[in-house]
């Protein structure tokens, strides 16, 4: 039995090489000053208005995106669950399929609709809206919701299908109305699904630079764009590394908070 432990070694070495050391590299660059010395300058740079602004905008957009996704996905998953469909049914298939399109093509698809001459653009112009759609916060938010919605639907639906029909029927027999069944039985039981859905939507929407690049007319910088540009065009790697370190800590902290609520939810069930 002890020999089996050795099997975990190769991947441990791999992880050190491809996870730990790369993260240390970010630290190394992030804390490196102009002449190679130690500095906090790049970490504290997050407080400068030109970085803090994009961070707050990203934060706001990703929170709204997460909430909107949850609001759209929850009823959807609930309806699908109550329809009692089999897992491999055609309807489920239909709601998963768009996710298999390439991420960039999905975003590009919206660019086609929102940009000048696109259907949505023309429609809104007819309604009297003047100005551009691409290059607004709304366009970016729309792109985020569209791209990350499936990440919310799937865990929710999975969590809901795990609920036994008998549990629901028992609640009904005990006199719960449909509303109570939804909020007092299904909701708490799907809490882990909500948490993983929130995680899977929040993190990528907070750090994206692709959606804002394509749908933001490059007028709007999110924190992802700032970091990407520090590396790809400004060639200020130290600053880029410093900012990504802050972002990473931020993400890991919010994960920890979420997980805390996750376990709280489980305690409530028990």
């Amino acid at each position, binding site marked *: 039995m002890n020999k089996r432990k050795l099997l975990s070694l190769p991947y441990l070495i791999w992880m050190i090489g491809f996870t730990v050391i790369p993260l240390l590299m970010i630290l190394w660059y992030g804390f490196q000053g102009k002449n190679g010395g130690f500095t906090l300058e790049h970490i504290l740079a997050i407080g400068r*208005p*030109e*970085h803090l602004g994009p961070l707050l905008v990203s934060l706001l957009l990703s929170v709204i995106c997460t909430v909107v996704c949850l609001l759209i996905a929850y009823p959807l998953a609930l309806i699908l669950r109550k329809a009692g469909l089999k897992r491999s049914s055609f309807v489920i298939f239909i709601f998963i399929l768009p996710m298999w399109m390439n991420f960039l093509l999905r975003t590009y698809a919206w660019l086609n609709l929102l*940009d*000048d*001459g696109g259907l949505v653009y023309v429609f809104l112009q007819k309604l009297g809206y*003047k*100005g*551009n759609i*691409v*290059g607004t916060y709304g366009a970016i938010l729309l792109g985020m919701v569209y791209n990350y919605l499936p990440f919310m639907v799937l865990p929710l639906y999975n969590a809901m299908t795990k609920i036994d029909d008998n549990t629901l029927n028992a609640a009904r027999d005990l006199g719960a109305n449909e509303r109570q069944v939804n909020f007092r039985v299904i909701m708490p039981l799907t809490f882990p699904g909500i948490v993983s859905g929130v995680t899977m939507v929040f993190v990528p929407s907070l750090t994206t630079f692709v959606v804002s690049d394509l749908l933001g*007319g*490059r*007028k*709007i*910088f999110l924190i992802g764009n*700032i970091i990407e540009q520090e*590396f*790809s*065009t*400004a*060639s*200020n*790697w130290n600053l880029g590394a410093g900012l990504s370190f802050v972002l990473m800590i931020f993400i890991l902290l919010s994960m920890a908070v979420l997980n805390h609520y996750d376990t709280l939810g489980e305690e409530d069930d028990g």
Partner: protein
Amino acid sequence: MKRNVIFAAFLIAALSIVVMAACGGSGNKQENNVLKVYNWGDYIDEELIGEFEEETGIKVIYDTFSTNEEMYPRIEADSSLYDVVCPSEYMVKKMMENDLLMPLDWSKLSNKDNLNQTYMKILSDFIDPDNKYMVPYCWGTVGILYNTKLVDDVVDSWDILWDEKYSGSILMQDSVRDAFMVAEKKLGYSLNTTDPGELEECMELLKAQYPLVKAYVIDEVRDKMIAGDAALGVIYSGEYLYSKNENPDLAYAIPKEGTNVWYDGWVITKNSKNADAAHKWIDFMLRADVAARNFDYITYPTPNKAAEEFIDKDILSDPAVFPDDKIISEKCEMYLYLGKDAENEYYELWKKVK
């Protein structure tokens, strides 16, 4: 069980694809006569690449970038990544100063006499003393492309890019130097200024312009102007001819405050693995017929004097494409490399604009 069978079939199909691709891939790698070219996007008649490969038997790996600033860090990280690169003059200077370039062997360039010596002298004076590193490929100005159907005013000044009338219909360049150049020239400063006060003023000016701007663009500016989506766009002069052919309502103006005149040219990287092929490439691009055909395709002015006899006379006399030497010498400036600190300063200010 059925699932497993399907899965196995899928795996076998997949593996065979991998094996086939691996064989194909290794076949490519065995050719040791490979030339890696790094050029601006949409900046060559791609048929010429094939012709070069046929004539010389050298396999070309062709890759593109969209701004100088995007190209530089890749070369800085590993200057053997590419053999020939086509940066703008100020970036050539930066690469020279950071020891990323290999001096040219002019004796290998049999078509060197095709070059217009006026430009060689300008480059030698300002950028590359004695023309050691750079062979000019294209040159031009930065100006305003406008749609005569959407703009009634006379376009002769950068001021029009701050006119509220055209709010939401202005396309600005999303490249630091080009964007700042517009503000610097409007205010009457040098486009190579490093004075913090002047730069701050430019930043405020660009910030004031931000709400009027439809989008910050690089290569899309051409398509958007052709489609009539915007009234005014800051653009490189070379795009004008192509745009006008596609949409006759478009016109190009060099603002009276002056503008940037730029030169893009071929350089060979310091650690190039195939400098010989790189010279052959440059020499090929210098050939008069090649340069002329390339001009017909990309419509960027060529510094190749010998190529001019292949080019339409009307085009040669169009001041938007080949502006007067006088305009160039009196109103226009070249970008100079300003050093790492000033570069950072520009970039930090640029972030504040958005």
